[in-house]
């Protein structure tokens, strides 16, 4: 092979590698409002309708492949579901007892109604694409800024929290799932006040870790894990409190902090329809400040506790 051909081949390789590294460095270093992110959003805007159409056209093929897999898994799922039903019955009994207690204080706080999902103006969206990458557990949805979807809005489905919006275009958005390595969710176990951070267990996409629980916490297998909705700046949570995330499957060994394994309720491999909670940021604190004003007659919630609370729910 001639020297010229070899030189040209190596030059092309070098050029492409350098170009990739420049792209990587620039993208990683810039803010989400930067130029490359804008290009990506513009591309997403153009591609979203095509993806949507392709998704609808290819749904029968997907369903066919899914049918084979689901049939193979059906037996083990049935056994697993039976166990879950037993566990849920026990949970239901415990929750009913807890609910009776809650109702007694519920008249004072009315927080039950303030947690209603409808208050967060959910936007229903269809999943039109999913990343195959182990490190990017993301899905694309067909609703974007035009429908009121904003960056960092929590995303749920009928089973619980599934992630947050990580990129928004006008008619589409990208959702980072709770199993994505870039997502961390402040969470607590059941009704306990101890909070930790839910993070993915890399290498096991169907498992999560609840980390940094205080050593005094006493988690039990089978307990429900929900979002804590922390409102202590600067550790505010993006997510409203009480959203179900999963169930404790294993409690880690004792150390300075406790870690527990959590199996997510939502089947993240098979998402079709999701809901984006579009008015979380600022919504809960406003309601809380309103509640404070109703508890203490004469106190001005807006000028008192209001500003502190109003700054929460974001971050």
């Amino acid at each position, binding site marked *: 092979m*001639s020297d010229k051909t070899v030189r040209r081949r190596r030059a092309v390789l070098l050029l492409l*590698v350098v170009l990739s590294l*420049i*792209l990587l460095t620039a993208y990683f270093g810039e803010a989400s409002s930067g130029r490359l992110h804008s290009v*990506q959003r513009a591309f997403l805007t153009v591609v979203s309708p095509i993806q949507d159409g392709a998704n609808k056209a290819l749904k029968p093929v997907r369903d066919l492949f899914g049918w084979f897999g689901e049939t193979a898994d059906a037996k083990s799922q049935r056994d697993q579901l039976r166990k879950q039903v037993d566990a849920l019955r026990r949970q239901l009994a415990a929750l009913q007892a807890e609910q009776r207690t809650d109702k007694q204080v519920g008249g004072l706080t009315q927080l039950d109604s303030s947690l209603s999902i409808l208050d967060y103006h959910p936007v229903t969206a269809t999943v039109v*694409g*999913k990343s195959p990458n182990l490190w990017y557990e993301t899905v694309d949805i067909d609703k974007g800024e035009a429908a009121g979807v904003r960056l960092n809005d929590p995303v749920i489905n009928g089973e619980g929290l599934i992630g947050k919006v990580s990129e928004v275009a006008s008619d589409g958005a990208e959702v980072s799932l709770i199993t994505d390595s870039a997502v961390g969710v402040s969470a607590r176990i059941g009704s306990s006040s101890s909070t930790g951070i839910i*993070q993915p267990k890399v*290498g096991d996409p169907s498992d999560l870790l609840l980390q940094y629980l205080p050593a005094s916490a006493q988690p039990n297998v089978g307990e429900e894990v929900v979002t804590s909705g922390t409102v202590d700046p600067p550790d505010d949570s993006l997510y409203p409190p009480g959203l179900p995330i999963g169930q404790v499957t294993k409690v880690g060994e004792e150390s300075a902090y406790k870690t527990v394994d959590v199996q997510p309720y939502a089947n993240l491999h*098979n998402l079709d329809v999701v809901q984006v909670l579009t008015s979380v940021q600022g919504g809960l604190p406003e309601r809380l400040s309103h509640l404070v004003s109703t508890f203490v007659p004469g106190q001005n919630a807006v000028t008192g506790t209001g500003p502190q609370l109003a700054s929460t729910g974001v971050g």
Partner: protein
Amino acid sequence: MMNGRSGLLTLRISLLAVVAVFVQIGVISEVPVFGVNVDISPLLVAFVGLLCGSTLGAVSGFAVGLLVDLSLGQTLGVTSLIFTLIGYWSGRLREMRDPQAALTPLLVGAAAAAVALIGYSLVEFMLGVDAPVSLDLLRQIVLGVVVDAIAAVPMWLIVRRALRGGLPEDPRRRRRRAYTTGGLSPLSRS
């Protein structure tokens, strides 16, 4: 200057890449096999390199990587970097060895998947992803390689069929000519 043949080949590769990425995102990623997702994009790049050579392999790897990163909102440049190397090295394999064994697509597919999965992990760790790592990660990578290797055989047939006729130098034709001219390979002439 691009002639008609190479222009046709570029068009075919571009169409193949777009279709493959959309099918990957819209269908294949939604159907996990043994708990992992089949990823046909590194297979596509590897097979383009294996059929078309290192330069076209590297260029198509960069382009497919960029398309994947743009479509999925991933960090731009990561997939391009990994796929460029996959396309280049599979092309070099063709230029240096011109493997004709029946298992070649399977082995090249497995190698491409391994490079992609390990490459992603290395780049993500270098970018500072704070994630606990366990043996599960290794298991996922091994399973991913196995599943992609299985998918490599039909993918090879599709890519070869799609590009047939537009290839710059069909390896079979070259081998036949080398045989009839007493073993003179075009590689040794150039």
